[in-house]
């Protein structure tokens, strides 16, 4: 068992509403290009949403697309792209020593709603209910589809962690690598949630669904006039390895996972708890052996709900005061809330800062909410800094789950 192995990220595969590859994604973030569409939501009319346009047939057959799920397809695309990016000689990899750990906010709503709609056209006679329903809706579906596509025979499962799930997938991978359960992991998160009206209706009736005449301005964390979440689909999976294995094969190392924490509010099913969020951040810092002033980028979870953004800013304010080198940004202002993929995609959004020294901004902040006016916020345009060596990635979710992941620039 290699309990203290250093864990590194060696490959990135992603699809976001504004990019289907890390370079395209990064370019749009640095140039301030959001890409939110307006989509027709079943029973609900048109709403802003982040839609991905990756080429699903790049890595799947049409029959696989027909029988599988959107989340599975996103996961396969991300895993295959990460694998290609990693430089791994796949034919030489022992597939029994590979794990797939995919964070999800939810899974199965899309497929269940579709089937209920299907049988509604047959007077709700369940003999018209598809036999594909169960393999599509089992909670491990997106991870399992990856194993079938890539011939992976090691462990696979999803990590249901609401919108903290993207970080949770990576944390699971790091833990399993340290335990010696696997030698390579595909880890991160995915979301297909724009295809379920239930998520839209739930947020709308909770007063937390964004609306704006211009879809690209609908997701506006920290803005005084923010009015809720833009729901998006997307995914990001990373190849994750033990440092010694990555070095041995001469891999390019994007970053090193330095610390993490997952904790629970234990207070409310939807309202965040800034004390627990701050506690989560502090534990992650302690495990990473870092002080707040050592963090160069804080990627905020902020989803543009009126209360949630303020609560997170309170948590951050208690920790990152007097930290002149700490910059704070938000990726959701470009791509909306990619739910289970959010943490992973937002990490992928910021990892290039280790090499280009630029911090992508938060956009759509026309009038900064005074309660969100943290020092270090990067607004409107990208900011070049002397050095980015650490990223602290916040991802929080319903039922009071908080996840914080700290990634550092690899220094050998």
């Amino acid at each position, binding site marked *: 068992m290699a309990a203290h192995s250093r864990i590194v990220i060696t490959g990135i595969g992603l699809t976001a509403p504004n990019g289907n590859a890390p370079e395209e994604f990064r370019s749009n973030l640095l140039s301030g290009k959001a890409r939110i569409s307006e989509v027709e939501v079943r029973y609900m009319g048109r709403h802003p949403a982040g839609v991905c346009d990756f080429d699903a047939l790049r890595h799947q*057959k*049409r*029959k696989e697309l*027909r*029988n599988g799920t959107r989340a599975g397809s996103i996961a396969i695309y991300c895993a295959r792209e990460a694998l290609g990016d990693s430089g791994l000689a796949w034919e030489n990899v022992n597939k029994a020593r590979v794990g797939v750990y995919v964070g999800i906010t939810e899974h199965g709503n899309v497929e269940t709603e579709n089937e209920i709609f299907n049988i509604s056209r*047959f007077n709700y006679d369940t*003999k*018209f209910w*598809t*036999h*594909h329903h169960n393999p599509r809706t089992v909670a491990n579906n997106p991870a399992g589809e990856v194993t079938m596509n890539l011939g992976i025979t090691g462990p696979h499962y999803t990590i249901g962690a609401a919108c903290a799930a993207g970080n949770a997938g990576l944390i699971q991978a790091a833990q399993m690598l340290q335990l010696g359960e696997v030698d390579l992991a595909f880890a991160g998160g995915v979301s297909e949630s724009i295809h379920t009206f239930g998520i839209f209706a739930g947020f709308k009736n909770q007063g937390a669904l964004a609306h704006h005449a211009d879809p690209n301005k609908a997701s506006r964390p920290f803005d005084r006039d923010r009015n809720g979440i833009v729901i998006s689909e997307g995914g990001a999976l990373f190849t994750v390895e033990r440092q010694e294995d990555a070095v041995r094969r001469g891999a390019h190392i994007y970053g090193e996972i330095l610390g993490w924490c997952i904790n629970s509010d234990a207070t409310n099913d939807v309202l965040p708890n800034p004390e627990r969020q701050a506690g989560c951040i502090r534990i992650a810092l302690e495990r990473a052996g870092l002080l707040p002033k050592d963090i160069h980028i804080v990627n905020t979870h902020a989803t543009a709900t009126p209360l949630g953004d303020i609560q997170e800013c309170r948590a951050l304010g208690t920790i990152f005061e007097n930290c002149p080198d700490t910059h704070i940004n938000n990726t959701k202002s470009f791509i909306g809330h990619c739910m289970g993929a959010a943490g992973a995609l937002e990490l992928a959004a910021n990892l290039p800062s280790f090499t280009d020294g630029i911090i992508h901004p938060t956009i759509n902040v026309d009038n900064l909410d005074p309660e969100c006016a943290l020092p270090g916020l990067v607004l409107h345009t990208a900011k070049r800094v002397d050095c980015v060596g650490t990223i602290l990635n916040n991802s929080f979710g319903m039922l009071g789950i908080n996840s914080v992941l700290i990634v550092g620039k690899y220094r050998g």
Partner: protein
Amino acid sequence: MTKEQVQKIVLNIIAEIAPDEDLSNVAPEVRLRDQLSLDSMDFLDIVMELRKKHGIEVPEADYPRLASLTSCGEYLLPKFLAKA
């Protein structure tokens, strides 16, 4: 309605559920599974599409009758005629 027309209906269903398959040279007498990449879930899809699109029921005991296009034509024609 003829057996050939029934075979065409089945072939169209297969085109839908197995869109990667080349169906231009399917031999009617040869078992479908021996010439196409179809599994048991695909045959359930054929049964479901017959039910949805044409109101045709195929009891589980009769699934082997769908083995080839020829057997499909022979087995399903009376059902289609009964629907007409």
